[in-house]
């Protein structure tokens, strides 16, 4: 990186272009507007030169070299459209089509098929081939989500290279040779990957098709819009496509800062959940003990009356709000303003007891995902990224494997990235702090000679252990030189919710309650008097009857909160429960008023990913029934409680956030609309990363090629020039509808984390096993269970321990055992796993049925359990 790459001049079809030494010819041509046809070459994969489609003529080179394996040299003269090249292209295509079945009308790829497109653009119109074509059994399922039709395969090896090189799940490969060559899976090792959908997306023909999308729609009846995935907090860019007001699929969009065009299968296929049967379509209120459907005004009036009653009885502290991390930033801000600015309570938490304190998240120096690539080293003190943040796993894996960034793994267990670690620090669950102290030593040899920050991927490895251990470890790691933190948080927009103040003790824009009190009193009229409780505290208080009104915003506490016992008691104990949700969950069933909310894909706005990147999400379909976006619901409630937010659409909220929240300074609706890759907060530190250009999803272009827009010319220059940037952002010609003017508001200091008190981790009793409860990608949460294609993929609930522990207890592998924790006794199957250390029991969170939630006591630091035979 230090030595600037040498510039060379290449002549492509008579046009002189500048390129960097060592770049691939095909890429140089593409960047300069010359499309060289190709099947096997993919921008994010290593070139192989399999398909021979990209043959070009190079002066002075004998024959026709493939453009995808030829690097540019100075003075190279290339012709991509000469007669010889055309003849070669004709020949290659005719050859490829010899064995291609006449499937276009029934093939899912028909209409967006690179083979079709390039045949039309570069190929012959007629075939000389009259013999019988090759025949294989028609589609065979190679995984639960992907079907393989070998007749259609043109052996470009994109899928195998993706699986091998990108995902690290080398489970498909070529078999046979010559005319019989075909893609196969290993007989005893099925193609199970969280990234299998990407092979479908990169396949240049219809050989790999996705089961969920099979025969669902055709490219020409799809309407696409670019959006940001909210399944987890990585914030992958994708294009969501709908037909007849139903979202039928999601495709990855290649964005350099985040996902490189990849998606995990949960994000890709989980869009099915949007059209789940149990969506709430109309508001409901409880009458005579039954929830009955009613009109919006009735429901809103009832909700506001309940909150008002609680206010009257208990004061502001009698109202609490949990949730808000699944919506947009605007939704979260509206809730924050309702809770803190209208009601005046600080009992607000967007995290369901499985995250880190807001001050820590907001106050530590942040890293961005691209920082991984240029990091001196990566320290991993986080949950299993492959399970929880799969695309971040791809990025970390790429950094470690392809770019050689040393990886220090601080963990209790083996996980997806363990095998790529350069150094590993193992610890007992809950003992992160002591492990963190060893990191500096482990790092020292690895970072020698390397520059760049040390990126710490920080998160709570499991939900059975309280945040304290991680908080304590963070305090240690923060002392590392050049340490920057990437927060491995759970749920789509949790970072955004925290940024806009949906947590106790903070106000929108990384401002603490104390420092921002003056500013927000001016903006909102009031702020809470004292720091409130977090989710665990709220539920505890509710269980004790101290919460008069509990607002659950998309928070399925009984399923998603680590301590189901506490959650149930809390919901039961709260005087009045308003559930703002989209599906009929257990918490909704217990609510007094149910307000249906619009989901991702049904509303537009912005979302903030784990690095603090604010990106736009787009509305694609309209919901069945009458669900409303959260911000509108919050606004209606506020109106009934005496404050008129006076909002027309979400852009007004964006402007208001930009005006009142210091962390969002300048990030107004206009900037958000123009920022191609989103805006990393705070803007002041990341202004040079801003690219001001709306991305356009090419619809009819050579369809499945990487969706990479041409580099913006004018505006990018503007953005990279620090003097010009403010001008580009400040679009004073457009009126700002924000009702709260920024000018005149008192300043507020943003939070800097300076360490916090953490409860010490209690020692482990030798007879007990310490529980580690990480999440799995496919769990019993809404996204998976409401997606028919994914629902079957949820693994069985089991307690994994080291085989020695099984024999110690005296049962056979797979037998049910009785498990006792402070929350009671449950019966579960026990399986042996040598990767689990002794003294540790591993159980995935929320796989349905009896689960971790029944075992964990959220108020204690760790969860230890005793295992006994059933009798």
């Amino acid at each position, binding site marked *: 990186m230090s030595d600037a790459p040498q510039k060379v001049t290449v002549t492509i079809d008579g046009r002189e272009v500048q390129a960097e030494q060592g770049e691939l010819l095909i890429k140089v041509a593409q960047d300069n507007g010359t499309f060289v046809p190709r099947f096997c070459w993919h921008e994010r994969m290593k070139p192989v030169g399999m398909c021979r489609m990209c043959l070009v003529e190079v002066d002075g080179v004998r024959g026709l070299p493939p453009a995808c394996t030829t690097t540019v040299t100075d003075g190279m003269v290339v012709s991509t459209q000469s007669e010889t090249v055309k003849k070669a292209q004709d020949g290659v295509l005719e050859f490829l089509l010899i064995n291609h079945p006449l499937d276009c009308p029934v093939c899912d790829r028909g209409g967006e098929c690179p083979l079709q497109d390039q045949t039309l653009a570069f190929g012959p119109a007629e075939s000389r081939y009259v013999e019988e074509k090759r025949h294989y059994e028609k589609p065979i399922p190679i995984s639960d989500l992907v079907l393989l039709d070998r007749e259609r395969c043109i052996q470009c090896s994109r899928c195998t290279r993706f699986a091998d090189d990108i995902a690290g799940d080398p489970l498909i490969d070529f078999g046979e040779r010559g005319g019989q060559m075909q893609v196969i899976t290993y007989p005893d090792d099925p193609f199970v990957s969280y990234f299998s959908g990407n092979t479908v997306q990169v396949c240049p023909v219809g050989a790999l098709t996705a089961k969920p999308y099979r*025969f669902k729609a*055709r490219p020409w*009846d799809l309407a696409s819009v670019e959006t940001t995935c909210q399944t987890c907090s990585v914030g992958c860019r994708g294009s969501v496509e709908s037909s007849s007001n139903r979202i039928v699929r999601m495709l990855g969009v290649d964005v350099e800062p985040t996902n490189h065009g990849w998606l995990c299968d949960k994000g890709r296929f989980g869009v099915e959940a949007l059209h789940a049967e149990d969506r709430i379509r109309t508001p409901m209120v409880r009458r005579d003990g039954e929830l009955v459907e009613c009109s919006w005004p009735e429901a809103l009036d009832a909700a506001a009356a309940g909150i008002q009653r609680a206010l009257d009885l208990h004061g502001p502290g009698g109202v609490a709000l949990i949730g808000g991390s699944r919506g947009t930033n605007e939704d979260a801000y509206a809730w924050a303003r309702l809770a803190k600015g209208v009601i005046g309570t600080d009992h607000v938490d967007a995290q369901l007891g499985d995250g880190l304190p807001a001050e820590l998240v907001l106050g530590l120096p942040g890293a961005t995902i691209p920082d991984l690539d240029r990091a001196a080293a990566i320290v991993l003190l986080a949950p299993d990224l492959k399970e929880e943040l799969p695309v971040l796993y791809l990025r970390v894996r790429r950094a470690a494997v392809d770019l050689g960034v040393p990886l220090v793994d601080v963990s209790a267990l083996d996980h997806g990235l363990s095998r790529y670690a350069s150094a590993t620090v193992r610890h007992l669950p809950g003992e992160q702090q002591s492990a963190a102290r060893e990191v500096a030593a482990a790092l020292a040899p690895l970072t020698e000679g390397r520059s760049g920050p040390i990126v710490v991927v920080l998160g709570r490895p499991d939900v059975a252990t309280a945040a304290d251990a991680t908080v304590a470890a963070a305090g240690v790691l923060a002392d590392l030189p050049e340490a920057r933190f990437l927060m491995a948080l759970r749920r789509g927009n949790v970072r955004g919710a925290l940024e806009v103040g949906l947590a106790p003790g903070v106000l929108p824009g990384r401002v603490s309650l104390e420092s921002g009190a003056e500013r927000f009193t001016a903006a909102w009229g009031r702020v809470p008097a004292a720091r409130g409780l977090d989710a665990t505290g709220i539920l505890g208080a509710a269980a004790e009857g101290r919460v008069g009104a509990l607002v659950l915003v998309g928070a399925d506490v009984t399923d998603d909160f680590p301590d189901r016992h506490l959650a149930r008691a809390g919901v039961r104990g709260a005087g009045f429960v308003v559930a703002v949700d989209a599906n009929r969950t257990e918490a909704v069933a217990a609510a007094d008023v149910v307000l249906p909310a619009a989901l991702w894909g049904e509303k537009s706005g912005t979302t903030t990913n784990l690095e603090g990147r604010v990106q736009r999400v787009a509305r694609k379909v309209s919901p069945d029934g009458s669900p409303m976006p959260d911000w509108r619901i919050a606004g209606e409630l506020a109106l009934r409680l005496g404050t008129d937010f006076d909002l027309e659409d979400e852009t007004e909220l964006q402007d208001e956030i930009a005006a009142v929240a210091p962390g969002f300074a300048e990030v107004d609706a206009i900037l958000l609309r123009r920022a191609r890759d989103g805006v990393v907060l705070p803007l002041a530190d990341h202004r040079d990363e801003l690219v001001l250009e709306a991305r356009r999803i090419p619809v009819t272009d050579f369809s499945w090629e990487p969706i990479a827009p041409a580099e913006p010319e004018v505006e990018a220059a503007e953005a990279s020039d620090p003097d010009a940037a403010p001008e580009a952002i400040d679009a004073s010609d457009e009126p700002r509808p924000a009702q709260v003017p920024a000018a005149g508001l008192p300043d507020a200091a943003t939070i800097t984390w300076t360490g916090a008190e953490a409860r010490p981790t209690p020692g482990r009793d030798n007879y007990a096993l310490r529980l580690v409860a990480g999440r799995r990608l496919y769990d019993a949460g809404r996204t998976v269970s409401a997606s028919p294609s994914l629902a079957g993929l949820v693994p069985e609930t089991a307690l994994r321990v080291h085989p020695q522990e099984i024999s110690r207890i005296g049962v056979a592998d797979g037998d049910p055992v009785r498990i006792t924790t402070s929350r009671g006794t449950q019966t579960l199957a026990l399986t042996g796993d040598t990767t689990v250390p002794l003294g540790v029991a591993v159980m995935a969170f929320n796989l349905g049925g009896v689960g971790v939630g029944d075992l964990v006591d959220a108020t204690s630091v760790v969860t230890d359990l005793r295992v006994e035979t059933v009798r």
Partner: protein
Amino acid sequence: MGRFSGFGVTLKQMFKPRVTGDYPTTKRPKPDRFHGRHVLNRYEDGMEKCIGCELCAGVCPAKCIYVRGADNPPDAPVSPGERYGFVYEINYLRCIHCDMCVEACPTEAITESKLFEFSFENRADAIYTKAELLVDDEGRARRQPWELWLGDEDDRTSGWMRATSPAGDADYEGRVNWSGELGFGVRDPEQGQSA
């Protein structure tokens, strides 16, 4: 006598045959290529020709065709191959009878009959579903109560498909390029330029 010869013209007409007819009771025969109400054809063995490929929907300039494909049930396939037309709807409030769908259909599944006399009392009737479009067991159009069918207007449904099948290539004129239809067998081609 030019000035008043007009009277002669009108008087003359009284002794000429009428050009109008008893329309609702009799209809003038329609040409072979007439674009009328669609039918969905079957092969001679009764299999549906439609494979749900949506080419017709894709080419339709009025966006009046709605098709959804589905996997053919392996034990009782509806059409040959993997896929069949699971939903097939034409909205006749939008259809302009341009017959691009007929030209686009790769399996000759959709063709047009000679009927255009159908008016609806409600919008739902105007949206023909597969139940109404698909030919019956004899290969004839299913006649809806609100349609005015007379005689054999459903006999020659594939005129436009046959007329356009050579795609401008004189070598393909007069050649049968299509499969047989239930109840009618393989239709004859137009004589083309040889006639």
